[in-house]
């Protein structure tokens, strides 16, 4: 399954938010990927997520595939929508 989300927090998907995102994705068995501008990377890889260079206001696609894909997708979307607890 695939869902588009917009990164709303100020720092974008860098440093702490990136670590939180990867940590959350790693909790699930399914494959989780993040896609930006046609580049697709493993959401369980911190270097991968950082290399995408996702800033505030950027749209990304979260792609989950596997047994617990629904749980993973819900958790990650919720995390992004919560602005990673910033503000």
């Amino acid at each position, binding site marked *: 399954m695939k869902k588009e989300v917009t990164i709303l927090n100020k720092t974008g998907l860098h440093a702490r938010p990136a670590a939180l995102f990867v940590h959350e994705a790693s909790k699930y068995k399914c494959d989780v990927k993040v896609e930006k501008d046609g580049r697709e990377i*493993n959401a369980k890889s911190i270097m991968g997520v950082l290399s995408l260079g996702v800033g505030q206001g950027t749209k990304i696609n979260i792609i989950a595939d596997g047994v617990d894909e629904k749980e993973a997708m819900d958790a990650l979307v919720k995390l992004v929508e919560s602005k990673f607890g910033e503000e």
Partner: protein
Amino acid sequence: MACVKVEDFIMDLELEPIYLGENDKIDIETSDLNRPGLQFANFFDFFAKETSSRLQIIGQTEMTYLKTLDTNVCQERLDKFFDFNITCVIICRNMDAVPEMIEAAKKHNCPIFKSNMVTTSFMSKAIEYLNSLLAPSKTEHGELVDVYGVGIMIMGESGIGKSETALELIERGHRLVTDDVVEIKKVAENRLIGEAPESTRHFMEIRGIGIIDIRAMYGIGAVIKNKTIDMVISLEHWRKNFMYDRIGTNDDYINILGVEVPRLVIPVRPGRNLAIITEVAARNFRLKNMGYNAPLELAKRINGEIHD
């Protein structure tokens, strides 16, 4: 098809703009080029589509010929030429465009650049550049290290110890290309090149420590920008009844972008030093490449003893 920003195109090919046009991007469909001498002479057969989508390279001959034409004929031919939806025109030898050409380019919104290179040299440079732009590519999860000159991509699931293996290889004097994300390009029929995403180049993540800068820590000798992918090492948890290669005669391959890359499946277990195993794999790869195959040599020796 590839799309390149006009500013990058200008910088990469060392061009100077004559007329920029309104688009800030150029669509590249092919790495073929065309010298439009015949079209300037009013021969437009086979020009539509394929040939008109190529970069149009103008050298001294074409330019001299254009200058021999009467103004109205020149206008008419160039108008017809640019009407084919030309991608872009590049004039070599630092020559300037004739006024009729700029006029027609403006009318059809087609950029014109000039290069100070000689036409043939420019063409080989352009073909190489276009080929690398159009090369099929993909991103893989893994490490890429240069071990004794052999480009080894280490793959395996998260947390199996890929980064740690790469780190130990760096400690032992080998060079890191990229940690965790390998951007792969197929540059020739049988050749893959891997490199790091520019933003995270030569950084590495080690669980428990965080992000480290390999270049700052180990120096310029510990890193390399890109490397061919000569073999793949797949790390996996030890499977109890799986038949691992004990002799070294099972030729296993992994297909990446249509290239068959030799692969070794290495089981991970306490007490197995993965960095040393990787070094040995690299040495063995080089021996095999130079025509020495240890299992075959051993078989020969045993056969010899039996027959003596």
